[in-house]
């Protein structure tokens, strides 16, 4: 049986370990990389090593950051009194895209997941409590996913964050813009009804 030369096989194996890349895709990407000019391939290699070397976690909010403190935490324009708690760094990007939030973040790096055995101790909750104690924070917005794990995390946080003078809020859940009522499930629609608001006169 003909096999690939060792370096090619190594490349295929390494690519195959990436999330969502199966053996066939790994093979296709490997052959593409072997075909492109050296510059292109080195650019990719450099991008990976650079990112690995320069990106770490922000020591304040645990978002991905190039320095000790991320750009959001070090921005003096940001509202220091509001904290948005999210599960993952990519959720920071999602909230930032709305341009509705001017406060700062705290990244938990996960969510309480009973079935995977992820408890509060494995998340950045101690750090969150320390921040709430040390900084001038008046509101914490719990912005975890509206699924079982996110809800569990939110319930746990609301319990440990019960401090006088601090308001703990949870993002609303409801119908997606552009969606159909007919297809909405009872839970979502029920919550949308619960969180309804007065229509302001235009």
């Amino acid at each position, binding site marked *: 049986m003909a096999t690939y030369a060792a370096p090619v096989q190594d490349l295929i194996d390494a690519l195959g370990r990436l999330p*969502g890349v199966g053996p066939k895709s790994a093979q296709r990407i490997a052959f593409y990389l072997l075909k492109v000019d050296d510059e292109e391939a080195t650019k990719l290699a450099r991008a990976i090593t650079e990112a690995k070397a320069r990106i770490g976690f922000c020591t304040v909010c645990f978002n991905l950051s190039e320095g000790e403190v991320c750009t959001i935490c070090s921005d003096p324009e940001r509202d220091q009194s509001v904290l948005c708690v999210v599960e993952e760094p990519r959720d920071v990007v999602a909230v930032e895209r709305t341009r509705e939030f001017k406060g700062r973040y705290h990244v938990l790096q996960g969510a309480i997941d009973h*079935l995977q055995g992820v*408890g509060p101790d494995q998340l950045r909750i101690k750090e969150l409590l320390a921040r709430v104690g040390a900084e001038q924070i008046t509101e914490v917005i719990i912005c975890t996913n509206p699924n*079982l794990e996110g809800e569990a995390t939110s319930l746990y946080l609301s319990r440990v964050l019960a401090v006088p003078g601090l308001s703990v809020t949870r993002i609303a859940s409801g119908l997606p813009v552009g969606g159909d009522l007919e297809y909405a*499930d009872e*839970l979502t629609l029920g919550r949308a009804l619960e969180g309804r608001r007065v229509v302001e006169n235009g």
Partner: protein
Amino acid sequence: MSLYRDEAVVLRTWKLGEADRIVVLLCRGAGKVRAVAKGARKTGSRFGARLEPGAHVQVQLYKGRGELDTVTQVEHVESFKVTRTDLSRMSHTASLLEAVDQVAQDREPQPRLFSMLVGALRVIEESDPPLITGAFYLKLLALEGVAPELDVCVGCGEPADTGEGVLLALEAGGVHCRSCGGGRRLSAEALAVSRAVLGGGLTAALELPQGPVTAEVHSLATTAMEAHLERRIRSLRVLDET
């Protein structure tokens, strides 16, 4: 017949690719089934919200050639709203689901297991008794045919002493009387409650308030369950932490 409908409880879910989910369902008719829910993680998904662990649903599935079926429609039978807003209820639910997922065999119809699980989920939704996990585990072990022997001593076959407690020897399959010896102490009250759970006194046992006796029965049941599964139950660790 490649499309079929069934009543199911979602045991657990995994992320798959960009926006899909693999769901493990315990169906009333079909037993434990793994299925792909395409697009379930998108915000606009038609059934994403209904396929969360612990949901009791009516599903339509497509059976393809592979191991995984495909979810085509989902409707809630019960949505267990209170459970979703209470951490203790969530933890108890998770501990039941995890054990059932381990015990159930793929595509092996287990209607009694299904009814038992749905019943327990309803109890959690209504009152969340402290002993629910322990009682469910004992019942589950009995259903599996491996309930610990609590009436007679597994060493000598004599009736186990009820007056001053017995010694619990789960590796031997039950309790030891004082004269046989060997095992962990189990109080007479905890022994009585455990017997009640297995012997038709479930409702009364579930009404017990949290206390040393319920803690003892819970510990007995989880140890026996973990010994039967030959693995740790992860949800229980989180239950203790939260």
